[in-house]
């Protein structure tokens, strides 16, 4: 169970994260310090992890008062029980101009969830700029890849 460490790049992390499918779990911290987890569909837009979420959701409220967020991609037998975890700083893109710019970047039809289109204030984009990331191979027993913003 010897652990190996590698210095990798954000592009390596992005490529690896795509193995786990579109679903991930975003952890945020509430104003009272309580952790919160939410399953979301995510995609990379540029170098940010993006999710299209309800404007009044708890994760959005949490990020507005504490921008620290962590993303954990889904785990499965199909990917050897590997894990990809991304820690970063989150922001909320909630203007019509921002939604228009990001609307076609998620890889699925957002209109199915928001018929009002990018003009609707019911949804926003939650964007996470990675600060560091780790890929654990088979729970970490088969090694890990690590990246940190310099």
């Amino acid at each position, binding site marked *: 169970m010897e652990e190996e460490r590698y210095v990798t790049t954000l592009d390596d992390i992005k490529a690896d994260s795509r193995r786990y499918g579109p679903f991930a779990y975003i952890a945020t*911290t509430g104003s009272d310090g309580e*952790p919160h*987890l939410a399953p979301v569909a995510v995609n990379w837009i540029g170098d940010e992890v993006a999710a299209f979420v309800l404007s009044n959701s708890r994760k959005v409220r949490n990020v507005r008062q504490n921008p*620290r*967020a*962590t993303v*954990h991609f889904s*785990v499965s037998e199909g990917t050897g029980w590997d894990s990809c*975890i991304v820690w970063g700083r989150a922001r909320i893109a909630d203007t019509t101009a921002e939604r228009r710019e990001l609307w076609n970047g998620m890889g699925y039809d957002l209109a199915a969830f928001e018929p009002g289109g990018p003009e609707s204030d019911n949804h926003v984009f939650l964007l996470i700029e990675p600060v560091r990331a780790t890929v654990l191979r088979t729970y970490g027993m088969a090694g890990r890849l690590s990246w940190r913003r310099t």
Partner: protein
Amino acid sequence: MNLAEIAAFCTGLSPWAHLATVGSDGAPDVVPVHPCWEGDDIWVMIGADSVKARNTRHEPRVALHWQVTETGDGVEIWGRSTLHSDVDTKKRLWTGVFDYDLNTFAPGGPEASPDTIFMRIVVERATVLKAYGMAGMHRWKRSDT
């Protein structure tokens, strides 16, 4: 749904859950865990010096989300954690509580695995989502919290 029914529902989901904790700096952390129920409590085998162990020594509140199935079923749990490293508790948990062989991860067994401890989560509230909520949502809250 009562808590026993929620526990039964969880055991029919993925064996994996995502555990969120918060560090002393307010940063959330999330890792995969393989939780198991014992009555109304959830137990997780963890490393004594893991980030989640360090975090919960500072902030015992945790969130746990069972991995959502292909049909969209999932459970979110909020609870309060305590850490247990005594041999008596480890011996009791080692056989009969977990549905996998703990020796795979801690070959020394309960008496010779000082780096392995257990997190107990007392559930304070829970949300059950069926088919992403489209087939029903059930909320449960402990009455004394």
